[in-house]
């Protein structure tokens, strides 16, 4: 019976996944890689760079406070991370040996929250998780993204790449078609960027709030009338790892300002 179940699931996977010839698929040329912020108008870009006016810093500041506040049950983050976490966000998502899984920054923070602080994990898009993630990511401001996809994370990276290249939704479009093959062109009022994650969590004017990368990914999936995945879904984490490897060379801008 187990054999049959295994067979069924393998057959389902082969029957349902689009057969993309990975080798034919164009990739971004290293010299072309640019952050979405280059497509912002000069005012919005100036707002992003102004640490007083950029509304994302409201979350960064709250994150900083949370970082040094001891929760009810355990020690404060700062107790164990005295020197802060500079440079760490630029290496995420990363494989965590203790649990044998690839975690994104939110997942890694929640891991400490549960195992080191004996507190319940923060929920996705909660003000707390957004704030602390923005604070930790902001400590890597200007650091070039550099993730490891050659070790145990390789298989996850490949799953993310498949997700990126697969057409989906009623509009039958892939991330690849918009962000690798048509960046720089106009989609109505937007200029298509290359779809990097380096500004997230980012303040989107449309959201009137800070939001996670997964929220942006859900918006893109919804935009092609595909069923978005739940926040924190392992497939989105895999996609995030692919995006990070694909953005090699550009640096963290959190908190980015986006339209």
């Amino acid at each position, binding site marked *: 019976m187990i054999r049959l179940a295994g067979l*069924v699931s393998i057959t389902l996977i082969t029957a349902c996944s689009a057969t993309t010839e990975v080798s034919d698929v164009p990739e971004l040329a290293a010299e072309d890689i640019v952050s979405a912020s280059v497509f912002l108008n000069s005012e919005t870009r100036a707002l992003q760079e102004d640490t007083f006016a950029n509304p994302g810093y409201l979350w960064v500041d709250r994150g900083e406070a949370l970082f040094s506040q001891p929760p009810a049950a355990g020690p404060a983050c700062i107790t164990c991370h005295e020197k802060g976490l500079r440079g760490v966000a630029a290496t995420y998502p990363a494989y965590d040996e203790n649990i044998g899984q690839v975690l994104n920054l939110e997942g890694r923070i929640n891991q400490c929250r549960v195992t080191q602080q004996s507190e319940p994990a923060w929920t996705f898009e909660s003000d707390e998780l957004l704030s602390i993630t923005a604070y930790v990511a902001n400590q890597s401001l200007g650091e070039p993204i550099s993730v490891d996809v050659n070790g145990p994370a390789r298989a996850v990276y490949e799953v993310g790449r498949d997700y990126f290249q697969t*057409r989906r939704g009623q509009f039958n479009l892939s991330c690849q078609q918009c962000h690798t093959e048509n960046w720089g062109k106009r989609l109505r009022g937007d200029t298509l960027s290359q779809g990097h994650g380096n500004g997230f969590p980012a303040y989107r004017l449309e959201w009137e709030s800070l939001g996670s990368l997964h929220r942006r990914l859900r918006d893109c999936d919804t935009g092609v009338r595909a069923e978005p995945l739940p926040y924190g879904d392992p497939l989105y984490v895999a996609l995030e790892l692919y995006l990070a490897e694909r953005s090699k060379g550009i640096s963290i801008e959190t908190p980015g300002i986006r339209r």
Partner: protein
Amino acid sequence: MNRVAILAALILSACGAQDAPLISSRMISGDAIVEPLTKTTGDAIRGEKLFVSREEGHCILCHKVDGLEAEFQGDVGPDLSFVGDRFNAGQLRLRIADYQLVRPGALMPSYFRTHDLHQVGKAYVGETVLTAQQVEDIVAYLADRKTSDDDA
């Protein structure tokens, strides 16, 4: 049921492959669907509205038409200001209904298709983006986009 039948049933339900193509090979000749999809002739005025409207066709997301009153027209797809010079109604019909039958790798979405799609949002499963009548309306609108009509 034997195992093969169970498998087949599972695969069908998992992939949504039960939908047969709405545009069958019999309907296509060359690179065109010559016969209209509906009995009611397309209405170019309704077609223009659909072409612009965010809730319906929203073709200006990717295409531009000179003289159309709409802010921020996209340029991911070709300029359609004179598309009627390049294609007749039948060719436009196929390109709007399912461009991927013209060129499988095309980015242009298929507006009259329900088969072989993945991860379709729950609200849209089994639905086409446009109704057959809406496709006809847009065909009528685009077939009129000709150089000679421009000075009207």
